[in-house]
């Protein structure tokens, strides 16, 4: 009897953590797609209010921990053709290579270099990875309405195998559609980047935020990414996500 009581007590103590993980698992389950493609329109506004615009094409094969992605700039002309290959892994940080046409070479982006801004945007190389539920420990931190939508607020901390520039993230997940609605990333207790999601739409059965704003709070700059021509479950080929593909595509 006492053993059963102890087990119930332990289960009750562990419940919030499990709930938090289940919420993120459900977010992943609902957003799972065989592939994804979109044309990204980026608007970068720096601390002085100066605006620059870029465009990239994003292709992804697989979902979350077992996915591959290629991101290729299409504008402005100066960076056209610059591409990033991301191989995401469920158990550890991704591998990334950047292809620069002017040099005719690819360069591996080392883990310690992932906090660097990606080509003048407010996204760091790490922010372009796909987060997998297994790489973080979660805790339910409460509930809160955000832009009129009821959200769960979760705290995520990277596990040891996941090397991250952020030691803690706060995630807001909409209770109606199980989508991320805001993410705040902290480094040494200081909020450094905030991701805000907007314009929620159901695309091929997947609720997707069509606008993502990344704010770099130290630089006081922000990048607004619009997902255009978004499509899921396209028949993308595995061979389009290799170093050779970076060179010849």
């Amino acid at each position: 009897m006492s053993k059963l009581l102890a087990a119930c007590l332990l289960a009750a103590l562990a419940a919030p953590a499990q709930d938090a993980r289940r919420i993120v698992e459900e977010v992943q389950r609902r957003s799972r797609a065989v592939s994804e493609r979109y044309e990204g329109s980026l608007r970068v506004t720096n601390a002085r209010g100066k605006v620059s615009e870029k465009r990239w094409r994003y292709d992804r094969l697989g979902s979350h921990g077992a996915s591959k992605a290629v991101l290729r700039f299409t504008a402005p002309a100066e960076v056209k053709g610059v591409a990033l290959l991301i191989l995401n892994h469920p158990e550890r940080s991704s591998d990334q290579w950047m292809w620069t046409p002017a040099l005719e070479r690819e360069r591996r982006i080392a883990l310690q270099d992932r906090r660097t801004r990606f080509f003048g945007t407010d996204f760091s190389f790490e922010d372009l990875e796909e987060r997998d539920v297994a790489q973080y420990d979660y805790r339910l931190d409460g509930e809160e309405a955000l832009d009129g939508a009821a959200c769960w607020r979760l705290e995520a901390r990277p596990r040891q195998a996941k090397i991250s520039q952020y030691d803690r993230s706060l995630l807001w997940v909409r209770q109606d559609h199980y989508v991320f609605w805001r993410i705040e990333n902290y480094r040494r207790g200081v909020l450094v980047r905030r991701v805000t999601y907007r314009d929620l739409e159901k695309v091929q059965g997947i609720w997707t935020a069509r606008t993502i704003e990344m704010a770099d709070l130290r630089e006081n700059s922000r990048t607004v990414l619009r997902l255009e021509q978004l499509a899921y479950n396209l028949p993308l080929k595995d061979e389009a996500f290799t170093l050779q593909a970076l060179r010849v595509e």
Partner: protein
Amino acid sequence: MRPSPYRRCAWSSALALAAAWPGFGQAFSQRGFVETRFVAYPQTAPGDRGRAVAEALLRYEAAWKPLPGWRFAGSFDARADTHRQVERAWDLAWQDRDLRRPAFAVRRLSATYRRGPLTFEAGKQFIRWGKTDLLNPTDRFAPRDYLAVVDKDFLGVTAARLTLEQKNDTLDVVWQPRFTPSRLPLLDQRWVVLPEVAVRDAGARYPGRSQFGWRWNRLGPGFEYSFSFFDGFHHLPVLEAQAQLKPFRVNVTRVYPRLRMYGADAAVPLKWVTVKAEAAWLTSSTQQADEYVLYVVQVERQSGEWFLVGGYAGEAVTAARRGFDFSPDRGLARALLAHAGYTIDATRSLALEAAIRDNGDGLWARFSYSQTLGQHWRATLSFSLIRGAAEDFLGQYRRNSHVSLALRYSF
């Protein structure tokens, strides 16, 4: 003079591409830039009293994917300058064997076919090997334009390249039927420091044989390494000098020595820095050519808006012979090399590159400030400082420190 078959081939290929233009549609992409560059040298040089050079370059690049797996890529350069570094002829160059830069050149024209793990590319293309950033001893299919020695640009090679990519392994096999040399500084200009005698270029003896090489690259979890082999000719020449009495002068013939290269490179990210190393043992059956090992070890780190690279390039001569060569890659060896970049914001950046010989006899440093102006324009202001002893490879150019301003419009 009748245009060579190669020039006719290049013209007809370019025309064929242009003729097919309306059908390109969605599978066609293009880009390019127009750049004007002004270079000012505060000092005159013994062979060159000019202090200002203006250059203009139009580069146009296009790619067409007519069918799944197929890709045709072309790139075209048109140039002009004020200092006779560019040919004043209307020929379209394909081979890059002219002493001067051609006014019109096919920089690239290749067809690529991909199927599963295989990629095959044939035609004029760029092939880059190696992992280090400061000097690449294993980069044997990459001749360069050394007209202004410290501001070098790569030249394409006519080759067939087969690449097999299987999970973490990539095997690259290259066959280059026709040799492309590096372009050397002009004898009557400041980047050649001549003795007090008249020297005449007596032409070149180009190799008739093809070149071959392979490289196997392996990606590990967080590290990568490769081994490579090359059998062919050095794209930099040894110089054969013959004295002529009436009138007294020295005739110099460019001879490209046989070369066999055994190379390796690796990149290992550690906790704080990434260590990259590259080494090649270059052997030759040509009597005038040295045999040597060239190696580079560098560490790099990106932190915030900083990009920092520092390293050492070394050389160990395994067979010293008595040839006289022009060898900028060896000229940068036995030196500390550094590269630092800082991104001020989305539109402005700074860069510093430097090479300092370990005996202190030569120094080259270039500081650049670059700024984009709107969506299309970029201005880059650079200052190159060269100092050292007359006997040193870098030091011999000590009167060639210069300032340059480049204005580029990208489209």
